[in-house]
């Protein structure tokens, strides 16, 4: 037991995490490619045309995984942030910093594809629906996190300040989600009900799950690549980085 704990902490040091990340990245990239090709093949060639929505519905194969990832990455980011704050490990803060741009990208992608889907289906690029609004707020939270980290020069302080912000955000996300939801039902603004989705064909579900796995693998690969760059930048004064770059 004691042995395994020591092993985990070994990778909390940037010097030992850097080569590990380097070895893992190709695996995640190839998994992302395989899942992506399979998912897109199902999405475009196997899944049947939807009876109500026609061909336009196929954008959900990108939209739904992007929305899932945008929410999940914030949780992972807050986890790393909390870990870094509690244990004072350097790689944790770097992981949180590396995940934020991918999370923001996913939130933006989700909003954008949602608008593209909404225009033909609802006749509007944007409605003040609870899900859309909370996704937009999540995007703002990501931007705040990135902006705060970018504004602080000292990386240790940036990590810790970002960690507190991420944890405050994670406490607030359920509150924001429910407040927006109740606000929406009180106003009865749009007549569209997103909750009563028609039951999905089995192939559509498979396509979506494969695409979700593809997005997972992509996010991990990109975050690891970014964390490697951050490690090199922050540890540039050390001997091992000089050797690693050579």
């Amino acid at each position: 037991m004691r042995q395994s704990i020591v092993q985990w902490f070994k990778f909390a040091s940037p010097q030992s995490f850097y080569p590990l990340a380097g070895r893992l990245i190709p695996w995640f990239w190839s998994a992302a490619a395989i899942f992506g090709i399979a998912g897109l093949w199902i999405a475009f060639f196997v899944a049947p045309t939807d009876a109500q929505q026609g061909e336009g519905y196929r954008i959900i194969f990108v939209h739904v995984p992007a929305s899932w990832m945008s929410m999940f990455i914030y949780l992972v980011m807050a986890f790393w942030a909390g870990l870094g704050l509690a244990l004072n490990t350097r790689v944790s803060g770097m992981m949180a910093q590396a995940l934020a741009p991918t999370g923001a990208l996913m939130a933006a992608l989700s909003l954008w594809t949602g608008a593209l889907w909404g225009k033909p289906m609802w006749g509007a690029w944007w409605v003040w629906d609870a899900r859309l609004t909370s996704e937009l707020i999540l995007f703002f939270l990501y931007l705040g996190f990135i902006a705060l980290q970018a504004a602080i020069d000292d990386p240790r302080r940036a990590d810790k300040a970002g960690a507190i912000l991420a944890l405050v955000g994670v406490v607030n996300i359920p509150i924001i989600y429910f407040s927006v939801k109740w606000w929406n039902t009180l106003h009865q603004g749009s007549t569209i009900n997103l909750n009563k989705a028609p039951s999905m064909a089995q192939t559509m579900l498979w396509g979506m799950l494969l695409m979700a796995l593809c997005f997972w693998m992509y996010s991990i690969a990109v975050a690891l690549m970014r964390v490697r760059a951050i490690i090199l930048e922050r540890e540039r004064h050390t001997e091992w980085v000089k050797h690693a770059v050579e």
Partner: protein
Amino acid sequence: MNAFLATVRRDLLLALRRKSEVLTAVFFFVIVTSLFPLGIGPEPVLLKKIAPGILWVAALLATLLGLPRLFAADHADGTLEQMALSPSPLGLLVAGKILAHWLLCGLPLVLLAPVLGLQFDLDVSTLGILTLALLLGTPLLSLIGAIGAALTLGVRGGGVLLALLVLPLYIPALIFGAGAVEAHIAGLGAGGHLSLLAAMLALAVFFAPWATTASLRIALE
């Protein structure tokens, strides 16, 4: 508790020696709410409908305006470091500073809101709900804002960054605060909204001084 009251008294005294800073935020609140009828038009029906939202958004922005001052001056002259070193817990002193901030920036807005509400043709019972909602909501704004103020202390472009960090977190307060007044106008009763607002306030009273203290310790490192 003595240290807490002493901090409140000190901050109030400091603010009263420089009245213009406090008054600026109050006048900002008045001017912003008066701009909306000029931009939208003087129709009483429309103004009555949008009044709760306007007053709440203006209160949000006015609170935001006062936040950078919360710790900046004490940070600049080293008082904050002495507070961190003092024998009484920093969290208590921070709570005192937040209370003083609310008394200076939040309470005037609560007292002014009924007067401004009259401009929007709200009736007496609605004005009462509006005041009550602001009374519960503005301390919440001060508490959440204090976390942002501590995080951006001494950081490049602090003021704009503070708005970016804090405004998304203000959304629930805005929704339930303005929602309480709208529900009352619609005849639904504001009790649920006010209860939720009070619940969020209770949560924030417990957690926000703690998070603010942690952020201040990071800024002081």
